[in-house]
């Protein structure tokens, strides 16, 4: 297990006052909070800061931590002394409570082994202040998925860590793997509920549910807008001018689509019901993009010259003329 220098993490001296520590935490939390920050590794950094603040803001935990001495360096191999935390009184100040209230054992998920050993589950600090939850809490996690998965559904395997209370009152972080069936036609921001997969309840109470908030990753071809998808389809000038039957990719597989004669770049055609499934299902919009072949051979140049000669009356900029 590696030693963690909580003072260094919060950027304060070992002599810092409680007020200094609070100020520094607030300043860093504002910078690295995952909801607000654009910093790389913000989530990891924020967890480290929460862990450090959890110890340094509590006079008892801070005193016990200070007792380890100041010779340790961050990352150095560490084993707690056998008489760790003996001789301290515990006032029952377990995890602090914010707006949520209740016992926040779940928040410690992601804290280091260093923290868990010294202040977590089996330590006297945790045992002093823990309350027994009546029913398991619901957990909330984010799941990223590809548009194809949102369209067709599928199964995903998730590795979850769930804190559980052992019969002797200590807490254990149990890993378990859950295979989730994603229904077809889910959308960005939707929630999936896995009944009973949240926090376990002691004494046989109802376990909480696990809610997964879905996020659809940006796609190479399609832009998602609600249940509708938009695809940009390159076409040749003669396909636009004369009309053509073109094979177009859709989420459900390629389909043939009729491009009407006289089509223009930027026009949108609709393939009804080819977006994300649902009731009603979304549509696929195909936005045409006329791509002009290069005049890079004598034959091609001759063709363009002929067009200029024969279609000379065509004015693509007629709309730009000043109107009376």
């Amino acid at each position, binding site marked *: 297990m590696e030693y963690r220098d909580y003072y260094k993490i919060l950027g304060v001296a070992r002599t810092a006052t409680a007020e200094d520590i609070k100020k520094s935490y*607030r300043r860093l*939390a*504002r910078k690295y*909070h995952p*909801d*607000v920050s654009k910093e790389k590794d913000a989530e990891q950094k*924020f967890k480290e800061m*929460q862990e450090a603040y959890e110890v340094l803001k509590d006079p008892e935990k801070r005193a016990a931590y200070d007792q380890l001495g100041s010779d340790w360096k961050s990352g150095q191999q560490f084993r707690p002394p056998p008489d760790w935390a003996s001789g301290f009184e515990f006032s029952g100040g377990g995890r602090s409570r*914010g*707006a*949520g*209230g*209740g016992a926040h054992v779940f928040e410690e998920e992601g804290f280091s082994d260093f923290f868990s050993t010294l202040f977590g589950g089996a330590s006297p600090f945790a045992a002093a202040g823990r309350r027994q939850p009546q029913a398991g*809490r*619901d957990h*909330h996690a984010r799941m990223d998925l590809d548009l194809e998965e949102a369209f067709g559904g599928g199964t995903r*395997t998730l590795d979850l860590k769930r804190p559980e209370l052992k019969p002797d009152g200590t807490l254990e972080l*149990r*890993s*378990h*793997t*859950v*295979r*989730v*069936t*994603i*229904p077809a036609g*889910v*959308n960005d*921001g*939707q*929630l*999936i*509920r*896995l*009944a009973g*997969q949240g926090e376990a309840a002691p004494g046989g109470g109802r376990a*909480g549910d696990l*809610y*997964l*908030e879905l996020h659809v990753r*940006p796609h190479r071809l399609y*832009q998602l807008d609600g249940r509708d998808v938009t695809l*940009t389809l390159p076409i040749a000038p003669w396909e636009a001018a004369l009309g053509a039957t073109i094979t177009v990719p859709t989420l459900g597989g390629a389909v043939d689509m009729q491009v009407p004669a006289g089509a223009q770049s930027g026009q949108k055609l609709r393939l009804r019901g080819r977006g994300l499934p649902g009731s009603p299902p979304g549509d696929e919009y195909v936005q045409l*993009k006329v791509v002009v072949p290069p005049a890079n051979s004598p034959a091609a140049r001759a063709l363009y010259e002929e067009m200029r000669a024969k279609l000379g009356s065509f004015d693509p900029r007629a709309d730009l003329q000043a109107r009376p």
Partner: protein
Amino acid sequence: MSDAVEMHEAQLVGEAEWIAASEICRLCRLEPDAVIELAELGLVSPRGYAPAQWQLPAAAVPRLAMAGRLMRDLGINVSGAVLAVELLEAQRELERQIRRLERLVSQLPE
């Protein structure tokens, strides 16, 4: 440690589904008073006469959860959290629009 792989059928919570306020409190780890205040400030629109009978749309869960996290972690009050959530959502929408416009610009001929 358990390596067992369990199979679970997912139950989809529709955006239009209404969830009891008490369930929302547990889910977003908010006190009932905080949810009432967040609703009074317009962050969410509950239905039902008295707060005890309130229901809220499932679609409101992500923004309520974010408000809860910001209040807990940054020590800001309810008004500050509402302002922050609305500004962050507006910022994300603008970033989405910028990405969409950048895609369109990249498709323009040289």
